[in-house]
């Protein structure tokens, strides 16, 4: 050790050389660390936002997306369940006709609107569009509604009806579904859509919902047939008392 320090004193050029060598190694390490850091950030920010589970954690026990003004976790006196299929023209029509009233009811703290997308019309497209659309909506919900706020999901839901493909065609592509999801405000759901992450969950929902046609509307579990939005509003408000 003593010999070493003596060497440094005797030969300042060597010390200088060693110093600049250390500076270079330090610079190389710093630059490499920055590159690796940027890489890690890029990988993490692209990571699927829906995890890898096959269950949708933001849904209720009945596999519904509950939109309500009531406090999270509580069940208000009136629960309106809307069972729908994104491929079904009658659902698009229902949405157009009853949408404003449902929006009004969603604000009511005594009412919850349970949206239950199912897939019973896969045979109406060459690409199982019902399942893919329901899966995509589950992707958007899982990705954006962890805090109980389904605003993004509702926007995606509305976009799906606005762009509903006609029956008998190929439906929207996974790319188009991803674009709609992105427009609605979801991010990093491409993998979930491409892999049909919640396909089995959608199949479970379709089976457990027990609806043979869509849209099926239930108030507190009872099927109801209502011809006008006003009738729906009255029936729901009656159930809150």
């Amino acid at each position, binding site marked *: 050790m003593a010999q070493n320090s003596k060497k440094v004193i005797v030969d300042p050029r060597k010390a200088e050389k060693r110093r*600049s060598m250390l500076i*270079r*190694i330090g610079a190389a390490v710093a*630059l490499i660390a920055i*590159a690796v850091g940027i*890489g890690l950030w890029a*990988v993490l920010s*692209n990571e699927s936002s829906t995890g890898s589970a096959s269950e949708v954690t933001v849904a209720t026990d009945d596999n519904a997306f509950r939109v309500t003004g009531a406090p999270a976790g509580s069940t208000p006196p009136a629960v309106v369940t809307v069972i729908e299929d994104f491929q079904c023209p009658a659902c698009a029509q229902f949405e157009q006709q009853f949408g404003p009233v449902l929006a009004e009811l969603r604000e009511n703290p005594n009412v919850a609107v349970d949206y239950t997308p199912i897939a019973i019309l896969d045979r109406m497209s060459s690409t199982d569009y019902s399942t893919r659309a329901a899966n995509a909506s589950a992707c958007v919900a899982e990705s954006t509604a962890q805090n109980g706020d389904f605003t993004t999901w509702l926007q995606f839901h509305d976009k799906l009806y606005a762009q509903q493909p006609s029956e008998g065609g190929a439906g929207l592509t996974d790319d188009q579904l991803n674009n709609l999801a992105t427009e609605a405000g979801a991010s990093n759901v491409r*993998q979930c859509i491409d892999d049909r992450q919640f396909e089995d969950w959608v199949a479970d929902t379709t089976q457990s919902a027990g609806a043979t046609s869509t849209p099926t509307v239930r108030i507190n579990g009872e099927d109801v047939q209502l011809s006008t939005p006003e009738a729906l509003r009255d029936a729901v408000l009656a159930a809150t008392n």
Partner: protein
Amino acid sequence: MTDTTDHRDGTTAHPEDAEEPSAPRGWASVVPASRPVGVAMLLAGAIGLLAAATLTVERFHLLVDPNYTPSCSINPVLSCGSVMVTDQAAIFGFPNPLIGIAAFSVIVVTGVLATAGIALPRWYWLGQTVGTLAGFVMVNWLAYQSLYSIHALCPYCMVVWVVTPLILVLSAGRVLGSSRVASEVRGWLWVLLPVWYVIVIVAIGVEFWDYWSTLI
């Protein structure tokens, strides 16, 4: 900062400077051969030549039999079959590796000469540096195309990506001479080399992450 006390600066000749007869002075002056540099260049050149030759031969096989699966088509990401048939694989209208065969042969010869202790004029090293720089620019362009346009990696091509920047740094180091500024620049080139490698590796890791993550 200019180092006025430095009398070994290669670009300005000092007639009174006789104490370093081997130091390069002017473009015609010879650069003393360095055996380690020669051996490194010989190895890098030979590896590059082998990669370019293999790619050319694989291209022939693919022309004879369009269904031929090249030896380097391992999986969807590591695949030279899909890379070789692209427009980018023939920038000048003929397969790129033909350039590699010619260019890496020169590097091998330079490596042999340097290893043998034969001093080459500085202009020779400059020429090789300029040529290798062109190759390095091409490597960067091809790497970019491979990652973001073709979406596949060709293993033999990546061998060329590895050796070309190394040859560039080795060649440029000979041109720079032995002044203090020159050795400072040379030192920093050796810093940039691993950084360049890491940037490419990270870019590959990020771009194909979906695939790599399935292997874990």
